[in-house]
């Protein structure tokens, strides 16, 4: 679980240092918008974050500077699903604020008349029934009910701590459970760990 308040405090400082922390890895990645013609600031972080006047519509949003999606999503469902999946919240809602295709990528810093939309593989859309479920509590109880999941509170994520510590946000599974938006480890598709031998999937799934 990440400590949002502490992060926010740290964060303002970091942003002022012009994003030194993530700039090395994010640059050149799919999330590096510093060279886009529509990003006149030429800054790396600005499309998503701002130290001032941040958007607070999404709880725990890290000094959010991007127009937030208002779409109503079709959620993942299946006969065997045990989790209670809700409308995307937390960081998933932030990702979908570009990846659902309803909000322009260049709708940031108060601008709402952008023209750049994600397309192709990047377009997740508002129908999440064909996507891995996100924005639900993944705890020991769910693991017990399902029978095919590891207990996130005791299972090692392979990233240093438990699944809960390294991959969940307030106990919830989000897009960022699998993806590292800042590309800090430089793994393809912005994954948080490599998926060779399906190691990412098998971190949580006891299959």
């Amino acid at each position, binding site marked *: 679980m990440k400590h949002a308040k502490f992060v926010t405090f740290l964060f303002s400082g970091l942003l002022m240092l012009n994003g030194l922390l993530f700039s090395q890895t994010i640059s050149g990645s799919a999330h590096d918008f510093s060279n886009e013609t529509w990003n006149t600031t030429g800054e790396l972080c600005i499309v998503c974050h701002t130290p001032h006047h941040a958007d607070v519509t999404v709880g725990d949003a890290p000094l959010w500077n991007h127009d937030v999606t208002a779409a109503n999503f079709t959620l*993942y*469902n*299946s*006969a*065997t*699903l045990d989790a209670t999946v809700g409308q995307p919240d937390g960081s998933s809602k932030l990702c979908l604020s570009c990846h659902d295709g309803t909000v322009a990528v260049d709708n940031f810093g108060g601008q709402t008349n952008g023209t750049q939309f994600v397309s192709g593989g990047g377009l*997740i859309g508002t129908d999440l*029934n*064909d*996507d*891995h479920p996100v924005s639900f509590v993944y705890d020991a109880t769910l693991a017990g009910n399902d029978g*095919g999941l590891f207990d996130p509170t005791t299972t*090692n994520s*392979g*990233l*240093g701590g438990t699944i809960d510590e390294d991959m969940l946000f307030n106990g919830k599974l989000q897009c960022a459970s*699998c993806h590292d938006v800042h590309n800090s*480890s*430089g793994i393809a598709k912005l994954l948080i*760990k*490599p*998926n*060779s*031998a*399906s*190691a*990412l*999937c*098998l*971190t949580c*799934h*006891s*299959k």
Partner: protein
Amino acid sequence: MNLSRIMIILAGLLIPLLLPAQSVVNTVHNLSVSGPGTVKAAGESEICIFCHTPHRSHPQSPLWNRNDPGLNYTLYNSSTTQAAPGQPDGAAILCLSCHDGTIALGEVLSRPSPIPFVNGVTVMPPGNANLSTDLSDDHPVSFHYSATLAAEDGELADPATLTGPVRLENEQLQCTACHDPHRNPFSDFLTVSTLQSELCAYCHQKDYWDNTSHKLSPATWNGAGNDPWFHTPYSTVSDNACENCHRPHSAGGHLRLMNHFPEEDNCLDCHNGNVAAEDIQMQLGKQYTHDVYSRSGVHDPEEPGVVEVRHAECEDCHNPHASRELPAPAPNANGFIEGVRGVNSAGVAVDPIQYQYELCYRCHADSPDKPASPTSRQIEQNNVRLEFDIGNPSYHPIEAAGQNNNVPSLLPPYTEASIIFCSDCHASDGSAAPAGPHGSIYPQILKFQYETADFTVESYQAYRLCYECHDRQTIIFSAGSFGQRVHRQHIVNEDTPCNACHDPHGISSLQGNATNNTHLINFAITIVSPDPASGRLEFEDLGNVRGRCYLTCHGVQHSPEFY
């Protein structure tokens, strides 16, 4: 940074190894290059990818990474299926997206071109794992397994009880009830062991099953002939249980998923002396049999109680879910024919039978197209139910004790109060032969020799069928006028067979009467003809072991003859 990346990669490599033994990683469903099977990818390392993708999956859950074959399958169907299996859906169609053999195993939605497999494999190679698009030899799937269905069938568990390893999907029975594609603790990814058919029993609760030898027998195969258990790893009857006869996939007999077609092959792989002690197959090879070989696919469990299209399959007389060794006194049905259908003495279908003769009446009573009686008689009747009716002037005591309370020839333990089985006369010949009318060297599947030709020289052997119960000594050597003038005179001196005067089953009261047809008298008209003086062909019972006959026989006119 570098160190942590190395750690991540190391962890990624290690995690599969650290997984508990029951993981998809160690199964043939790991189609990645690390998989243990022979059908696997040439280079792809991801395991889940062959079925799942985190994004842009097929609309079919769970996050399906394959196309729907979109085909029309030949479905399982039989007269005893209450369920209405539809075209495969739910999990079933997911399994079939590899197991019907139409879509390349490596063809996944998340890759622009199919993932290459070793040895140039594309679609599922032929074999047990390739079910093809003909599902008529496979256990039905994709049907609503409701409480109503269970009630209609009568031999199915209430689906509400399926909360353990065997589960339904949205109340539908799908492949996943029996198979868990991610775990293979038994074999074939089964959710429950098939040892003693534990898996089948979750849903199928067959009447009688708990007591049948087919569930309980520890018998083993002697290694000769066909392997009766060619599709299981088990080596006793009880361990094979349902699978002694049935196969959930690739069933030789599609209807009711039998191991083999034709029907009898299911029985005879064991009942040929190679598993069961008694060799029934040998009996069925004799000249006079209930011929199970000549017809196939005629028998149907749903056929009417009174059989309309003549046939005899093993399962007409035996209920393989019920059969067991349990003797019963006549006329009751014993364990071998427990739980079968029949027709009672009133001609009404019954299920199950209580008495042995009710089984015989299915075909030998009111059924159409019966063959004529082997002997032409003055009174013709080939409905044995009418011949044995207890209102008849005389009959062999099949349904109840006979009419005559003075039968001096009876050998112990028989008395005038005895009841006998049809199978006391009609059974396989030979002293060690297994019970029942399977096959005999004697016509009419008689247990012993019974000569019916005129001018048969009397001997114990020639009429052994009769002499087994009726003492030869008493019949032909007793001192009284009856013994001398009737039996000795005719049988010994004139070489006339018993069958010339006696109709062994009985004479229906609809045709005969208590004056002319007591003592099973109903003359064979090939031997006996009318008395030219009176034109009569008649026996008259005068009571007290006295009577007279009007007839001509061996050129001797009886107009009448008294005794």
